[in-house]
């Protein structure tokens, strides 16, 4: 079985995330990490591999630095990496991103393409559905529990109004939530072994995508402006000496919450 995990290199949420002059996310001038939610996708792939026989390839797109997300995934246990690296990708929206990933998946082939539930930077959570749409395969998404039986994938999806059980047949696109598993930490041995694992670098030409169809200029949406949220004005903080509950209620009454 061939499993391809799509991962994203994102600005560290605890760093000072910001924008560039073209209103795109600054991905170079800030510390980056493997998007935390993608660790669950890598773990889901490894668990499927351990239950049967599978090869796990990890796929990312983005600038030179994005290779770190592949390396981290290889340390966790993926077998090989694919990095789509091309200056023309800069500024792609979800439409452009899903095009690049879908074309690459067509080239690598896959039985299951696994994604995290969303990235921790854009956090749209729409790329898995777009991938399934572009590839013409079933989508089994926001899975909080996954089981595989032959070529059938069964998942629990905690939807907005109900908990659903979804069933579909491979090849398919699967996305998993942070409830799906407990990602493992790489061992020292795995960290050393990761250095020898193959990573293929592809350009847009390699995957048959026209540079004019992706990137900022080809995006179907446009960020007009951004502004930092004004700092919250310092509030009142009291230490409880037995009267704090009363002060809290007074505050709530003044705010017309009571």
């Amino acid at each position: 079985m061939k499993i391809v995990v799509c991962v994203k290199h994102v600005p560290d949420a605890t760093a000072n995330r910001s924008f560039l002059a073209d209103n795109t996310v600054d991905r170079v001038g800030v510390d980056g990490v493997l998007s935390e939610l993608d660790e669950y996708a890598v773990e889901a792939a490894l668990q499927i591999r351990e239950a049967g026989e599978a090869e796990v390839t990890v796929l990312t797109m983005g600038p030179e630095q994005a290779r770190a997300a592949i390396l981290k995934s290889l340390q966790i246990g993926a077998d090989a990496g694919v990095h789509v690296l091309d200056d023309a990708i800069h500024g792609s929206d979800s439409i452009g991103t899903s095009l690049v990933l879908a074309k690459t998946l067509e080239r690598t082939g896959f039985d299951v393409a696994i994604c995290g539930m969303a990235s921790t930077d854009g956090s749209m959570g729409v790329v898995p559905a777009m991938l399934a749409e572009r590839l013409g395969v079933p989508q089994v998404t926001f899975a909080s529990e996954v089981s595989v039986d032959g070529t059938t994938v069964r998942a629990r999806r905690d939807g907005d109004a109900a908990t659903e059980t979804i069933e579909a047949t491979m090849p398919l696109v699967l996305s998993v939530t942070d409830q799906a598993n407990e990602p493992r930490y790489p061992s020292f041995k795995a960290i050393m072994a990761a250095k020898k694992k193959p990573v293929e670098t592809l350009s847009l030409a390699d995957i048959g995508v026209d540079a004019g169809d992706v990137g900022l200029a080809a995006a179907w949406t446009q960020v007009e402006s951004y502004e930092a949220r004004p700092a919250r004005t310092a509030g009142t903080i009291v230490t409880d000496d037995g009267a704090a509950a009363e002060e809290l209620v007074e505050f709530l009454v003044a705010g017309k919450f009571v």
Partner: protein
Amino acid sequence: MGEILVLVDHVDGVVRKTTTELLTIARRLGEPSAVFIGDGIAQAREALQRYGAAKVYVLDAPELTDYLVVPKAEALAQLMERTSPTAVLVTSGSEGKEVAARLAVKTGSGLITDAVDVQAGDDGPVTRQSVFAGSYTVQANVTTGTPIITVKPNATTPEPAEGAAVEESVTVSLSDLATSAKIVDRQPRQATGRPELTEAAIVVSGGRGTGGNFESVEALADALGGAVGASRAAVDAGWYPHAHQVGQTGKTVSPQLYVAGGISGAIQHRAGMQTSKTIVAVNKDEEAPIFELVDFGVVGDVHSVLLAAAEQIRARHT
């Protein structure tokens, strides 16, 4: 005025508040048409009419709701082809965002998700989104195709305005792919008797500091008529169901009042509540980062403070 398609979010015909918000927003942009998929139009009709739907397209075939996401996206795409709307509005939620995502690819249209405000602009709708854990606000628009926008709950206050609500039954043809991911079982979320988390005007949440006892959190929520939330630490510990998780990987809430009980305020939690209008926190650790956000903070025991406050509020009502 152009037609604005609004995908109705409902449970067996009970229209969710978010849909009345979308209809209110749609009236700023053009003439709202509600798209009702599934059972229960008889019950839903009144709410759709009251909030200004000029038309109501009714799509009711079992395949539309027995399979995940794809049938709804195909149905909307066919409706777009027929009506040439000037925008499509969908509620932000896992299903709504995925329906919108596929619709965008199918129709060659730009997609904006999680808008917290939508206004009419010279070149179509202009949206505001809260990004990077609520530390920035971004203004954006769609430049290609028909703007497809998913809107977060509480983006506006629903305003009634009687619409004609002319009903039209619509038949769609679905592809084989539409029935490729079957929903083989569905367990409706159990009613708690409290408001829905993302819709609630008041949310009281508990975290690690509760030690696993949510009695005081629930007591204050009930005294205020609010919803109950939980931090990831509390959910991971098995203290409260995941459906109540507030934060980056749970729900994002933006209520009038957010009370954080025993929650330290890690960035992942702040991402889910930072845009709340008024923030209150009770935590025994005065160094907890949550206190950087508060309008009113109490350094003290979460249980005794919340229980006493709940009791005093109840006493005022009697």
